[in-house]
């Protein structure tokens, strides 16, 4: 039996990688992948705790998260396609028209 702290640690590492990826990368698809990574880090934590507490609630939440992530991907990819069509690039730094 692997102790729960391992799972949590892995989850934290994955989350941090995702967050840093979102903050420092300029490619929109990579940023997207970072977001997915953060979501799955959270899923991992849920599953680990569900196993720990022998409760099914955490597992169910994970299903919800996966479903929401799928929807989010669909919307997000559509946005990226539209951005690419207008800007001819998916570099998020190009999207700076809100600059004050």
């Amino acid at each position: 039996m692997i102790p729960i702290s391992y799972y949590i640690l892995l989850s934290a590492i994955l989350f941090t990688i995702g967050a840093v990826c979102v903050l420092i990368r300029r490619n929109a698809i990579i940023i997207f992948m970072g977001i997915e990574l953060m979501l799955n880090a959270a899923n991992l934590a849920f599953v680990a705790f569900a196993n720990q507490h022998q409760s099914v609630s955490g597992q169910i939440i994970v299903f919800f998260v996966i479903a929401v992530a799928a929807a989010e991907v669909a919307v997000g990819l559509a946005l990226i396609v539209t951005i690419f069509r207008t800007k001819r690039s998916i570099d998020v730094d190009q999207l700076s028209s809100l600059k004050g």
Partner: protein
Amino acid sequence: MLLSEAVTQGPEFFSFAPGLILFPVIGLLINMFFGGRMKERTIGILASTASGLSFLTAVLLAVSLLSHPEGMIIPLAEWISIGELQVNWTMRVDTLSATMMLVVSGVGTLIHIYAIGYMHEDVRFKGDLNRYQRFFVFFNLFIAAMMILVSADNYLMLFVGWEGVGLCSYLLIGFWYDKDLLGRPGIENALAGSKAFIANRIGDFGFLMAGFTMFWTFRTMTFSEVFSQVHHIAETQPGAILAITLFMLLGVAGKSAQLPLFVWLPDAMAGPTPVSALIHAATMVTAGVYLVARSAPLYTAVPDAQSVVAWVGGVTALFAATIAVGQTDLKKVLAYSTISQLGFMVAAVGMGAYVAGMFHLVTHAFFKALLFLSAGSIILGIERGHHHLDHGDHNDEEVFDPGDMRLMGGLRKRMPVTFWVFLVGAVALAGIPPLAGFFSKDEILAEAFQLNFPVYILLAIAAFLTAFYMGRQVWLVFFGDPRHPAAEHAEESPPIITVPLIALAVLASMGGMLNLPGVHTFTLWQEHTFEAFHLHLHHGEFNPWIALISTGLAVVAIFLAWLLYGRKPLEENQPDPLRKILGPVFTGMNRKWYVDEIYETLIINRYIDLAKFLSIKVDWDFWHDWFHDKVIAASYRQGARFLAGPIDLGIIDGISKGLAKFFQSLATQFRKLQTGYVRNYALAVFAGVVVILGYLILQ
């Protein structure tokens, strides 16, 4: 006592009283809104019917008074209610006011009927239906206003009527406002109207002052409440009552054409003749007499005021009679005669002979209306004669005055009906028994003989002159040979004019029956009203000597008039025989003792000077040039410049501009936060989440 209780069961129609005012008002409204679409005659008949219904109401009220002599108060509406001041529209029907109602509506109706014919015949009319309509609207308005005046239960409502009749008088004097006295284009008639209005305004000022003083001392305007306090106030504040009565006398002098305000009445003859008869002889001008009689308790409380009133009346009676002797215009003689007779009435009510004054008011209304209407008929007859001439030789340039007695003569044969009714009126006015004027004038003279001998002398001389000038007028107009072709071709008037004349002639001859000596019907009737205020009337006993003296004087005067004008009738262009006898005195009489000229120099020109001084020196030079331009405008301009410069541009604009600059620079700093890089925003969100989570965990 038993008898009076027995008759108390009689009929009672007091609730009809509002009809007095309502009928003429309805009549005038119909004529005003629909008269334009009606025929000329319909308008006249409608107005006459309205007035006739008013008369019918007055008769019903008089019948009710026979069985309920104490009278009745009929409240109509609430009017003014401020603190302790309560003034309401309330009608007061008692024997005194009912007498006035009967005279006003009765004589008024006859004159309405006469006017249907007269206004049609008037040479100035020329088929202008609007004028016709307007005339009858004003006439009905007059009846309504006069009814308000006589039926009022308080001085304020009386004042409303008082002003209403003054307005109608003004409107009707200037009825031909675009013509002069002879019908040519001009403004003389309008000026005569203004003169009447202004002279009346001076009188109304007196009335208003009397009203204010009355409210100040009595705290009420209602007749019965005022009169019940008179005794108390007379002891504590005799000066107040003296002031009220004397101010009221000024109002009386204005409305009833007494010295010194009588000057408007002769000029008022500019109005159409029915107007002269109704307003300026029979009814409106007697309002002053009615007012004094109505205020009898007040006047009785201050003998000083009474004697002033008596003297004003006596002097006016004599003064106007002398002027009447020297006039050459048909209507002017009658106008001065009216002033003189009003002097008789005012003298009578001033002496406390209220019933004698009211009695003369009634009989005078009959015979003076008769005389004026006959004069109108004469003028129409002469105009018809003149019209006849115009066909022969066209000379419109010649100015012809149809009212000039010097151009008349011999009308007896040409206008027989008018002659006879005029004669009845003239004899009644002269005071020959048994016509109406004899009884009423004799009653005044008899009372004056007992109460105020000097005034009696004045009145007796005036009565003598009255008989003389009426004799002069009758001989000048009706006897001898015509002195102008127009008089030669004069024609009698149609029945619509002569029938009212005959009716009035009957009244003028029978009017004396109202108060025969020894019977005192009228006195007994009026007593109900005066005794309600604890005034015991002095029963003027018939004095055969006084009657004999006044009749003798009248006969002598008529004989003198015959000597001068009847025995050897005036020839064409011959000067008045009196001029040779009296010399400058006659000139004075003829020129109205120069009263108008004296007023012109003493008052009117001074007033114009004052007005000029006020307008040029005070208003223009002082107020406009100096005060407005130099003081107000200049300082305002400086003030405005100061406010606009340092205050507005400096302080107020500085604050707002500084504020704007400050926020602009602040915003320049803040906008740097908005980098537009998604990463930065995401970092901010993360930082926020971290801070919130950190807070929640550490809590």
